[in-house]
């Protein structure tokens, strides 16, 4: 489709003039994990409307509109993964100096050479016809939509691998994402995803609560809001009854299944994947949000940036099918739908802003600085520019002692890695410095390792922070006597972060298999190792190592393999939240 696009030809033309690499169009249209949403008809080269929901529109427009090469759109484009590639050439530079520098270094055609700055301006101005054609193409562009409206719960490491070749900021952020949020649920990017995600999250949270009384109360409350839609929102009952009815019917069905959450979730899932019913429920919520805005203009009116005012914003954005929710829309929907029932919404923003983790933001405002345990149920959303998905944190569990964490790592390192793979030593950072001073550091007796590895849960007391207490201390050999208290600690520890030797088979059935023959040590080849399934790769957790190419989860690693999580082990992979930071600082 793009090769025939006149706009694409224009890019060729420009690139020839500048003698830019011929791969330019390829950069622009490179396959990208960015989900394309926002089908609003006016999708063009505008940006900066404010609010996370719309900011990404300009990013999309660049991906498909190479001629919108103004500096503004170039900046706005720095939100999508693909723009990392686009950012490598200075095509968007319009300053006369760099443009003339380009031309002088290039055997340009003669009439261009005569007046470089003029040439620059001329060539950067797109042909109006191309602009029109491009705008028409952008207007008619329909993203290829795949999959169900609401997908199955998926390990969020899938996001990590999706971004494995994206911008470093994305790699960093998606690499740590699965620690906090173990799973996500993809939502179709048809322009309704934010509305759909919140609506689904609302029903899912009701189902998880399992409180029939609460669900019935919600039905009554939403029924009561009909008059609000009518009087404040100004919508005829003939319009809204169809939409509201579907919401109420689903609440009925969920209430009837309140004792059977699994069946109720299947019901919610099937309902949301029925296009008509799912759309009706979403549209009901759109009407609620727009009515709420009309009824609270004093509070929210100032946030309406649409030049058509509140009424125009309602009919142009909130009430239009397949127009994405923006920040104001989220606030409105939370206030009218989630807040009265005590649900909290937390949005994790995955974008190219500086930082090593996704930024999260909580609605409503008063829930922002409070500990999750003091809040009601939380619905988590993942926002990537122009798209929302649902996220899930594993249920919080007791946070293990940080001492346990550190000592385990020290104890394990020499047996596994030092003797076999010295190349990864620097990755251990501080720990290695300490270890280097220990006697016996360079050559653990071969006979020791099996014993050590068979000894799954080790007594904590044996690993006091003192650097002189080494892994050779006797308690290793006699774990049973102190095993019970330790096994509790091990259970509490997040599996992906703890080293395999502490993962007793009883705790985690069917441990993840990561086969990387090159990294085996000679000890690992021993039959008893293989039998015990103890030769697996440890999950390296120091931030230095994690971000280096020695980590197999790093895309530069020759044995690259994304981290894997298994839903069935979810209960044990849990408490990454809040715990992750502690470990990273160790």
């Amino acid at each position: 489709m793009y090769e025939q696009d006149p706009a694409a030809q224009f890019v060729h033309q420009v690139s020839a003039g500048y003698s830019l690499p011929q791969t330019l169009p390829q950069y622009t249209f490179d396959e990208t994990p960015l989900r394309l949403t926002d089908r609003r008809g006016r999708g063009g080269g505008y940006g900066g409307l404010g609010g996370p929901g719309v900011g990404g529109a300009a990013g999309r427009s660049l991906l498909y509109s190479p001629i919108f090469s103004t500096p503004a759109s170039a900046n706005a484009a720095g939100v999508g993964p693909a723009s990392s590639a686009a950012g490598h050439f200075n095509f968007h530079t319009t300053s006369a100096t760099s443009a003339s520098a380009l031309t002088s270094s290039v055997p340009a055609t003669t009439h261009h050479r005569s007046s470089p700055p003029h040439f620059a301006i001329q060539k950067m101005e797109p042909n109006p016809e191309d602009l029109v054609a491009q705008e028409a193409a952008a207007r008619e562009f329909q993203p290829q939509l795949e999959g169900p409206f609401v997908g199955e719960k998926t390990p969020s490491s899938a996001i990590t691998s999706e971004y494995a070749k994206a911008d470093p900021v994305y790699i960093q952020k998606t690499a740590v994402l699965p620690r906090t949020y173990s799973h996500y649920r993809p939502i179709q990017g048809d322009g309704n995803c934010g509305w759909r995600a919140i609506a689904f999250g609302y029903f899912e949270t009701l189902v998880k609560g399992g409180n029939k009384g609460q669900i019935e109360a919600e039905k009554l409350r939403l029924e009561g809001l009909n008059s609000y839609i009518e009087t404040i929102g100004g919508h005829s009952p003939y319009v809204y009854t169809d939409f509201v009815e579907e919401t109420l019917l689903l609440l009925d069905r969920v209430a009837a299944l309140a004792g059977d959450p699994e069946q109720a979730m299947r019901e919610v899932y099937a309902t949301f994947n029925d296009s008509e019913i799912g759309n009706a429920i979403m549209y009901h919520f759109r009407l609620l949000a727009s009515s709420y805005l009309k009824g609270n203009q004093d509070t929210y009116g100032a946030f309406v940036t649409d030049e058509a005012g509140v009424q125009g914003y309602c009919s142009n954005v909130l009430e239009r099918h397949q127009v994405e929710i923006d920040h104001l829309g989220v606030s409105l929907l939370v206030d009218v739908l989630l807040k009265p029932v005590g649900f909290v919404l937390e949005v994790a923003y995955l974008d190219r802003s500086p930082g090593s983790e996704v930024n999260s933001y909580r609605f409503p405002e008063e829930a922002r600085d409070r500990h999750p345990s003091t809040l009601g149920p939380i619905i988590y959303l993942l926002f990537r520019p122009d798209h929302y998905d649902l996220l899930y944190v594993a249920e919080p569990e007791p946070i293990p002692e940080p001492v346990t964490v550190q000592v385990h790592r020290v104890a394990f390192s020499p047996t596994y890695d030092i003797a076999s793979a010295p190349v990864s030593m620097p990755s251990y950072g501080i720990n290695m410095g300490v270890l280097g001073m220990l006697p016996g550091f360079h050559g653990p007796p071969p006979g020791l390792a099996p014993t050590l590895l068979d000894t799954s849960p080790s007594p904590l007391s044996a690993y006091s922070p003192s650097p002189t207490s080494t892994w050779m201390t006797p308690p290793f050999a006699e774990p049973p006597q102190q095993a019970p208290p330790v096994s509790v600690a091990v259970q509490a520890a997040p599996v992906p972060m703890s080293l395999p030797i502490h993962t007793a088979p009883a705790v985690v059935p069917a441990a993840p298999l990561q086969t990387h023959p090159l990294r085996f040590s000679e000890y690992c080849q021993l039959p008893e190792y293989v039998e015990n399934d103890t030769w697996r790769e440890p999950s390296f957790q120091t931030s230095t190592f994690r971000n280096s190419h020695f980590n197999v989860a790093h895309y530069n690693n020759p044995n690259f393999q994304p981290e894997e999580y298994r839903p069935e082990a979810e209960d044990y992979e849990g408490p990454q939240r809040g715990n992750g930071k502690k470990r990273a600082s160790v």
Partner: protein
Amino acid sequence: MSYMDDTQNSAPGSLPASKAATGAATSKKVNENATKRLQNELMQMMTSPAPGISAFPSADGNLLFWRATIEGPEDTPYAGLNLKLSFEFPANYPYTPPTVLFITPIYHPNVDFSGRICLDILKDKWTPAYNTQTVLLSLQSLLGEPNNASPLNGEAAELWDKDPALFKTKVMDRHKDIEED
């Protein structure tokens, strides 16, 4: 609300049809949803009619095709004229707008000679909150207040301001009452 209680979604606890639905069953179901909505709208047109407009499904019993009539508002060149329109509703109505055409030949800046209408709410400004009645009311006001900035009929747009008398003549020349088929 009793008239809609006979749909398949009413029984609490019943699974949505999509679970076992084949493609054909799904599209049938989509039609049912659009049909349900159109039944509501028909009810609205009959119980709370707006002055000067009317609409009814075509004679063949298919709820997705409607005929509508707009009486030309007073103080407009269309005063006293009866203008007929056809509505074709898509299967996923109300999420996409109906296709609306003037069947009666009409001379108007925003209507071309095939009866096609240039009105934003029938295109990209459509929302599922609009319905047949609001569309007809919008078209009624469009008769008196054309959007001359984006005309389909350039001559009409020009004459509207320049020569109202000639405009009125052209309207009457073009108008032709059509038989109900």
